[in-house]
């Protein structure tokens, strides 16, 4: 088959999106450097979408963009449509200050990278909860009951935690308290930007488990950002891979893990230490990802890509539909199956079930 037969598309759609991101870009330095470059993405209602990418690839920008909270002086363009349970869709970027304030935390909430710095160090946690409730004109008593329940769900002792100052809690506790804080207004969507990056694995895994429970209990939609691919593998329904400020691959988790079609994704999978995989075949990715001010033309991965061709150097690839809702922004996604073996799979699994792939 030749590439011309490939189906390609600007974005991979889902059935019942709660958030539709279209061509979201963030620029600094008066438009000269893109730190988020034309990202289009659907977040399905009730799903957990894992976003993976190496440090500096624009993950946090994407997360901030969802709340129209890109740090100054960044400029955010594109559209981000929010579809509430009932009622009309709104473009978040068009909202006025008051509506935006209502949307944030009440509809879409966020947990930041680094809980340690997300709390005001001079205020007790109870204050944080109370002031959040007050700022949104909620009933404080009912809200605090909710907070107690949330904290208990997160394996914390509510009274002790609430009367503490942030620094009196361990990192893991702070992170869980922050999750509770972000859920206290019962939002629909929870955006989590590397909520566990600073924690050790045991705590990360435990929190992930709790998140899964919370998602069920509170009927949440989650966007989970991490640079640690295996971490989300067990949690996420779908996964999106980011490289150099762009989305380069998206699909069901199983698809990504077992049938990743982008050379970068495959390399990333191969460089991930894994308890079960044979040791010999793990390979690091050579080279470094580009900085926003000197992005290469064409596919941003081409300087590191073993499959790079002329076309890659000049054209930015769209999503090529690999299978169903699995899209990969690579001209040579087919070749990558042969050229880059996934080391973590058993030999049998490595073959491409040809029939499924277009």
């Amino acid at each position, binding site marked *: 088959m030749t590439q011309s037969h490939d189906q390609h598309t600007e974005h991979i759609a889902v059935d019942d999106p709660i958030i539709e991101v279209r061509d979201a870009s963030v620029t600094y330095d008066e438009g000269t450097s893109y730190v988020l470059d034309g990202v289009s993405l659907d977040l399905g209602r009730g799903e957990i979408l894992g976003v993976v990418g*190496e*440090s500096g690839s624009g993950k946090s920008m994407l997360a901030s963009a969802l709340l129209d909270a890109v740090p100054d002086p960044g400029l955010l363009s594109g559209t981000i449509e929010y579809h509430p349970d009932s009622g009309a869709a709104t473009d978040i970027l068009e909202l006025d200050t008051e509506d935006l304030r209502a949307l944030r935390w009440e509809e879409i909430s966020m947990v930041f990278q680094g809980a340690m710095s997300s709390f005001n160090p001079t205020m007790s946690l109870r204050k944080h909860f109370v002031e959040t409730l007050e700022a949104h004109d909620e009933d404080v008593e009912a809200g605090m009951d909710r907070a107690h329940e949330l904290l208990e769900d997160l*394996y914390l002792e509510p009274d002790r935690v609430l009367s503490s100052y942030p620094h009196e809690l*361990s*990192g*893991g*506790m702070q992170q869980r308290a922050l999750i509770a804080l972000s859920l206290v207004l019962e939002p629909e969507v929870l955006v989590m930007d590397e909520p566990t990056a600073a*924690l*050790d*694995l*045991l*705590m*990360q*895994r*435990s929190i992930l*488990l709790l998140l899964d429970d919370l998602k069920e209990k509170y009927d949440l939609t989650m966007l989970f950002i991490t*640079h*640690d*691919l*295996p*971490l989300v*593998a*067990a949690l996420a329904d779908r996964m999106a891979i980011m490289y150099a400020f762009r989305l380069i691959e998206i699909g069901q*988790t*199983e698809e990504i*893990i*077992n049938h990743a079609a982008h050379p970068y994704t495959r*390399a*990333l*999978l191969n*460089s*991930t*230490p*894994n*308890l*079960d*995989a044979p*040791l010999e075949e*793990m*390979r*690091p*990715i050579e080279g*470094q990802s580009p900085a926003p001010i000197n992005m290469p033309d064409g596919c941003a991965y081409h300087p590191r890509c073993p499959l790079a061709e002329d076309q890659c150097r000049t054209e930015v690839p769209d999503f090529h539909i690999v299978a169903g809702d699995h899209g990969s922004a690579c001209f040579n996604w087919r070749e990558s199956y042969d050229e880059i073996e996934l080391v*973590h799979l058993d030999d049998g699994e490595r073959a491409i079930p040809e029939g499924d792939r277009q």
Partner: protein
Amino acid sequence: MSEPVISLENVEVHFENERLLDFGNDPETVRAVDGVSVDVAENDVLSLVGESGCGKTTLGKTAIGLQRPTHGSVKYRGHDIWEIREGNSDADLEWSDIRTSLQIIHQDPGSALNPNRRLLSILSEPLRQVNPDLSKSEKRNRIYSLLERVGMNPAADFADRYPHQLSGGEKQRVALCRALLMNPDVILADEAISALDVSLRVEMMDMMLDLQAEFDTSFVFISHDLSNARYFSSHGNGKIGVMYLGQLAEIGPAEQVINEPQHPYTEVLRWATPDLSLDDHGEMPMRKIDIPDPINPPSGCRFHTRCPKAREACTRANPTAYEHGEQRVACFREDDTHEYWDSPELTDD
């Protein structure tokens, strides 16, 4: 086997913390390391894993003589290093010899290198210590060759840079070079790869393993990630030690610890280690998420507050290490005749 390079015997490290404006309380004692015995052989790799705050760093630093143990002994090739330092030993070893033989690579690449010195200057420092007679050009040549060896080409260009002009991975490589230039017997790699991007970790570990073979150096490798520890220890034919609250829960050859974990805590760590398999890891094999306060560690077996298999007996006595093949495991379950088996299971209510 030959005599171990370092051997720790029943090492304890306690820190006393004074608290401000805290009326009436005694100073608090953190038992960061509490009775650990372990050996590091020539050309060995020992990985220490465990949760944050369990005492890995403290144990590692104690092993290389950066931290003075409050109890127990740390021996370098059979001689107590603190006695040598104090001059109380009749061994024909100088403290400075020991000092140069035990080196460290830290976790944070950002603070591992003095931001005010160029790489050449940073890397000259170890040579200055071990080979003060080398001429400037000889020093430079050695540095260049080692830089190239760790893949930093062109070396001359890199040597002229400041640390902030390097990526995190490159900084860690320089830190590795610095340790290697000391020609050490043991390098403590304290989370040396944790701060790096996932994609760079393997590369860094490979590099260390290559050089371990080449320079005949032993590594004490600290990580909280079991899969990294496995990668490192397995390749280096070494051991993995699992720490919990200042004590060694389990220690043994890498593949055995990974594949046949004996201690319930090792299983917990295994559970927590992410992998690319899609099947559910299942229920959390722990009764509580948070690690107990190291100031008031639980009585008996330290893990009993979280251990899913804990029984009443575990609250009473602290298990000693049981041999299990090449592994050593601190759990009563190793002793088929222990009263553990007869005591009731612990529940949280």
